[in-house]
């Protein structure tokens, strides 16, 4: 191209799939640094902040977007279309945040089928009055023509089950400082790990970074939910009987939840070498149960009310099983 000598500005796109919007807000949480981002890059597509249509993206040349931050899981045909479209238009596609990385909170829908969810949401919820049992249809014929809305899938997918992903930035939402580090690495092209890596996080578990007092021998006689016990604010949560996802969670967030006296919930996903954070957590917690007799073990496990939901809070679709077997 003619203007090869003057370095063109980067083109940046941010899109949300099945997400709460918190990831987009975390980009704004860079505060005045956002101006630096805008100085280095043109935002070409960002539905939360810009008025731009999908067909404008479709008209962009392939690989013309330098960096796309895709947050949110893939839940319906619209998410899937945009995931495929942005993959085609982007040089680097980043799964940004827990939902795009492993399914996140929307991924908990994989404990149910689409029909169960529709029944609950449109018929059974206490505030719903729907005697005709009307549920959203994918397409509906009216006299003006056919109306269509995106089709909701039976399953929630993390981004990498739909398209190839170059990098993963975990977190719910990712820490904004980490985004800046990753962004400057991409702008400069220096210090980028091989494609497929998790960036914006480190290689240790949260326990390695946690400052709470820990002993070697963890013996648990009963599990407590966080509200059932008075936290002493200095001893390891697990030693107090409160399940903390620290042992099976990648560090990088600065252990913020524990610093705020709340157990880790596992939004940063599994540490390197582990594929399934929940299975890792069951391995860790299981051995700490202080009983030898099967009945006593059962009694202690009884105090973990919902192991599947607790251990896979942010990672069900990206885990080994992926969803509840129906």
């Amino acid at each position, binding site marked *: 191209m003619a203007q090869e000598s003057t370095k063109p500005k980067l083109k940046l796109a941010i899109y949300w799939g099945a997400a709460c919007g918190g990831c987009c807000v975390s980009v704004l949480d860079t505060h005045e640094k956002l101006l630096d981002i805008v100085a280095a890059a043109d935002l070409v597509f960002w539905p939360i902040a810009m008025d731009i249509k999908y067909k404008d993206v479709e008209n962009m040349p392939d690989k013309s977007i330098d960096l796309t931050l895709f947050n949110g899981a*893939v839940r319906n045909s619209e998410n*899937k279309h945009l995931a495929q479209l942005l993959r085609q238009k982007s040089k680097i596609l980043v799964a940004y945040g827990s939902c795009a990385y492993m399914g996140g909170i929307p991924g908990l829908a994989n404990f149910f089928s689409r029909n169960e969810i529709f029944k609950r949401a449109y018929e059974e919820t206490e505030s719903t009055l729907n005697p005709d049992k009307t549920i959203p249809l994918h397409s509906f014929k009216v006299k003006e023509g056919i109306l269509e809305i995106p089709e909701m*899938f*039976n*399953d929630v*997918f993390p981004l990498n*089950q*739909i*398209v*190839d992903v170059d990098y993963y930035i975990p977190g719910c939402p990712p820490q904004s400082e980490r985004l800046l580090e990753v962004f400057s690495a991409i702008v400069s092209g220096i210090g980028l790990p091989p494609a497929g890596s998790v960036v914006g996080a480190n290689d240790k578990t949260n326990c390695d970074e946690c400052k709470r007092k820990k002993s070697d021998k963890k013996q648990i006689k009963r599990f407590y939910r966080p509200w059932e016990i008075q936290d002493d604010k200095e001893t390891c949560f697990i030693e107090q009987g409160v399940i903390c996802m620290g042992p099976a969670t990648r560090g990088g967030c600065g252990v913020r939840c524990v610093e705020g006296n709340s157990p880790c919930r596992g939004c940063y996903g599994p540490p390197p070498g*582990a*594929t*399934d954070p*929940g*299975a*890792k957590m*069951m*391995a860790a*917690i*299981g*051995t700490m*149960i202080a*009983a*030898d007799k*099967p009945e006593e*073990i*059962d009694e202690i*496990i009884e105090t*973990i009310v*919902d*192991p*599947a939901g607790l*251990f896979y809070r942010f990672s069900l679709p990206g*885990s*080994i*099983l*992926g*969803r*509840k*077997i*129906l």
Partner: protein
Amino acid sequence: MNFRPTIVAFLCNWCAYTGADLAGTSRLHYAPNVRIIRIMCSGRIEPTFILKAFKEGADGVLVCGCHPGDCHYQEGNYKCLRRFKLLEKFVSQMGIEKERLKLEWISASEGKQFAELINEMTKTILQLGPGKVNKTLEFEHFKTK
């Protein structure tokens, strides 16, 4: 087509594997549906192994270790039992029938019991039908690699 179940069995080196070996050297006949993986101790079993076995098509998973008190490494089998109980609760939440996952203690002298165990488990799984773990997601949405 006739359904032939696949059972993945993790056997500890010191008791259960030796027990299975004894079943073989004693020329006992038992169902050919079991795929044995030898591990040093049942305490080595991680939930990941079992979930992965299911994901890759196992219709049942069996874990065998030494009887309580007999572990070669003192208490590996107790560790296994605790993890297993927790995993059992998780697996039933995930909609996998509890009969598909079994933990049994087999000593080195229990070749006969091992053969009976395999026969019995094969029979149960034949009645349950094929495992559904790897058929449950809407695969048509997955990217073609």
